[in-house]
């Protein structure tokens, strides 16, 4: 573990499993960030992963930014910013609009 930044604290977050080669890993990061961004937009949040620095960048529409290490941290940070957790079983996800 790097003393300065604490990366990586654990041997990979579980959501990052299933990609062995560097190419697969990078593809998965872009793909994940794209999907995440679509989920977060309606909540006034955006997600970006440039593939260079570790972690996912979250921003609010007012420009407030934070970098979080993994998806578990994304949901915790989103809950902090929104004041409530994003619940996939919330009715907004269960109806076609």
């Amino acid at each position, binding site marked *: 573990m790097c003393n300065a930044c604490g990366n990586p*604290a*654990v*041997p*990979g977050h*579980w*959501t990052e*499993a*299933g*990609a*062995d*080669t560097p190419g*697969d890993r990078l593809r*998965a990061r872009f*793909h*994940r960030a794209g*999907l*995440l961004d*679509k*989920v977060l937009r309606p909540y006034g949040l955006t997600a970006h992963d440039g593939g260079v620095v570790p972690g996912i960048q979250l921003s609010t529409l007012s420009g407030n930014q934070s970098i979080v290490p993994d*998806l*578990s941290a*994304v*949901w*915790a940070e989103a*809950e902090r910013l929104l004041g409530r*957790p*994003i*619940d*996939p*079983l919330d009715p907004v*996800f*269960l*109806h*076609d609009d």
Partner: protein
Amino acid sequence: MTTDFADGRMRLTVLGGYLGSGKTTWLRHQLHVGRFGPVHVIVNEAAETGVDDVLLAAASGLTLLAGGCSCCTGRQDLIDALRGLCDQRSRKASDEQRLQRIVLETSGLADPGAIVAAIQGDPVLVNHIVIEQTIVVVDALHGLAQLQTEPLGRRQIGAADQVILSKVDAVDPASLTLLRATLRALNPSAPQSAAVLGAAQPLLDLAPDAQAPALPPLSDDDTRGAIFPTRLKIDESIDWSAFALWLSALLHARGNDLVRVKGVLPTPAGRLLLQTVRKVVQSPEILPAQENQSEDGTIVFIGRGFRPEDLQTSLRRFAGRPTGLGQKT
């Protein structure tokens, strides 16, 4: 076993089960027949005086943690003991034989899920230890009565990867079937096997239509409904990244209601075994390819407080796929 595992981490088996269910008896016999190979055994007893340690002399190393259940009051002792093992192992030269396996026999009062959570939450231990499986021993004689009255008994079953029925020679086939159907209802993903004094016994396949007796609701799950299992088929249009995104959000929001999630999913790196206990996800493991992969892509969810059909809709929405709602087909 002489070679290290590819990722260099030790494998931990958690052995759980209710008080007096036969955990030590089973483990003693398994050590005798060499099921685990060279193994360090950690025995936890809730009482102050340990008895089990003398019975388990066949282990290559033994640690006794007495006076406190390792899922609650004795948790720090467990973490310290495991860290000690990691330390000793790290000091060995690379060409010496190093410890590969640990078996943790929990006290009968322990919730294996809480222990798994404690180990995975420790920043040192996650780098050294992979929790391989949770084996839960169930007393064939008293198991059903315990499940009817004890929330702990149900939590133990919910956390199991494998269920061992002990004392099967002491019950009649009809009540054994009742118990097995109940266990299947509580945890359909855990294979069942039988043992008498630790020695494996043949067990007939359970008829698919065997009815489980209704379990009375217990005080700790009164308002949120009963825990039920459901299966979610992940179709090919939803890849692992999308599924992991959705599941991580679901566990964050509903982790306390999702007792267990387990299944095998195809990924670019191979077949990935995924399992969670409440909010804790065990390190996913790549499985070797098998001939029969028909169960791949089916994930078992054991939990409460949601409608099973909502899982599929929500997952498709997260993955940006059409939800199938409102389509006239």
